[in-house]
């Protein structure tokens, strides 16, 4: 099937300049300010007075070429053919003529493509591959994301939350996305050590590599079986060894599930970036619609909407009231799992007598 032709290599990506609409070329680097027109629509104004409108549409990231061609048609119809994508899987239509915005929004909405996700709204949920296409996934990505976004749909369409809300998901501890720094993050987790297929390890895996892959040093060579042993007390089920050696399977349908972290952010606004912190150690996998996960996230969103001050991101709200209060407000149990015992744990222990009591009731 393959013909012997070898095309040119190392040509690099297409030059972005050729993709830009004229109004951007004219105002490149000379934008003055922007304002929101309505949820999902931004207006940027240049020093020349030129205007650029952006219409943002949420997508499930997994797109068929049929849909992409339709997006191209829409871009031709309204935007002289110009569109872009964002790092959070949104599609943005760029147009200089403000009079076309409403018609564009209407056509997108009519076809089922939600316009929103700007300003103080729920941003599109960034996520990874999951059961569709990755080997180490402890839960599905597209399915969980679809279920959660269906439930929180209105928050994407409006922009009256206390602040922006970024939810992310990763389907295993590799955490491909910037999940560890999101307002709310849910992550696929395993809970049992890998099963060892000695034969497979002996024949297919490089023992030194496997030993080195384990962040906690749980893996030791087992020279007799030409395989390895795993120290149950040290293994924290990251699946890293499985990525290096397929004969150490970490898949466990009964016990795999999801953990939720909150309060992270990545921008430098006000306080600097923050990791998300563990609030719910385990929720079972419940395909197809993951009802417990959806309910847990709705609860987490609603308590923030209800209690945060205007302008407070999730973590800023918690910081103001304190983590101990947060667990009270969220009505979530605090367990041994919540206290860090991994690398760098000690600085997270409270080394002051200042705290709030939450057991008074």
């Amino acid at each position, binding site marked *: 099937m393959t013909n012997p032709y*070898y095309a040119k*290599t190392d040509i690099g990506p297409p030059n972005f300049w050729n993709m830009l609409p004229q109004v951007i070329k004219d105002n490149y680097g000379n934008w003055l300010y922007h304002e929101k027109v309505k949820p999902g629509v931004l207006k940027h104004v240049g020093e020349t007075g030129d205007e650029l409108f952006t219409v943002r549409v949420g997508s499930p990231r997994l797109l068929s070429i049929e849909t992409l061609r339709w997006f191209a048609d829409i871009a031709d119809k309204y935007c002289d053919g110009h569109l872009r994508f964002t790092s959070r899987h949104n599609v943005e239509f760029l147009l200089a003529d403000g009079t076309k915005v409403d018609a564009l929004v209407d056509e997108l909405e009519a076809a089922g493509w939600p316009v929103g996700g700007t300003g103080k709204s729920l941003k599109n949920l960034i996520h990874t591959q999951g059961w569709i296409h990755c080997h180490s996934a402890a839960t599905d990505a597209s399915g969980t994301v679809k279920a959660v976004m269906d439930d929180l749909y209105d928050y994407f369409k409006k922009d009256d939350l206390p602040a922006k809300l970024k939810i992310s998901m990763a389907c295993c501890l590799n955490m491909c996305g910037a999940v560890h720094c999101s307002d709310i993050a849910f992550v696929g987790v395993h809970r049992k050590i890998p099963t060892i297929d000695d034969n497979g390890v002996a024949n297919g895996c*490089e023992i030194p*590599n496997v030993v080195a*892959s384990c962040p906690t040093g749980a893996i030791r060579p087992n020279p007799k079986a030409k395989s390895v042993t795993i120290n149950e007390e040290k293994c924290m089920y990251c699946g890293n060894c499985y*990525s*290096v050696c397929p004969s150490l399977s970490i898949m466990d349908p009964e016990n795999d599930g999801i953990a939720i972290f909150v309060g992270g952010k990545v921008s430098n606004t006000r306080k600097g970036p923050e990791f998300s912190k563990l609030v719910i150690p385990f929720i079972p996998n419940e395909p197809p619609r993951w009802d417990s996960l959806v309910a847990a996230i709705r609860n987490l969103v609603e308590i923030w909407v209800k209690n945060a001050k205007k302008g407070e991101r999730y973590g800023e709200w918690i910081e103001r009231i304190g983590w101990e209060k947060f667990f009270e407000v969220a009505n979530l149990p605090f367990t041994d799992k919540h206290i860090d015992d991994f690398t760098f744990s000690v600085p997270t222990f409270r080394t002051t007598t200042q705290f709030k009591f939450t057991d008074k009731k």
Partner: protein
Amino acid sequence: MADFTPEELRAKILEYLGKKDKAKNRDIATALDTNKKEVDKMVNEMAKEGILEFLYLGTSYVKLKDKE
């Protein structure tokens, strides 16, 4: 550290990879006791010619193309 002409280096790399399933460029440079940058350059050239190929097993390696 040994200095090789490009022809020598090419031959040495082929000889080394002939003995191995796969290697990282660093291993090749250490085994040949030569500058890693030169090895990188030569490996890349040979990859473009289709003599070598890369594989990924937790990290990337090179190997002779079609060597099992």
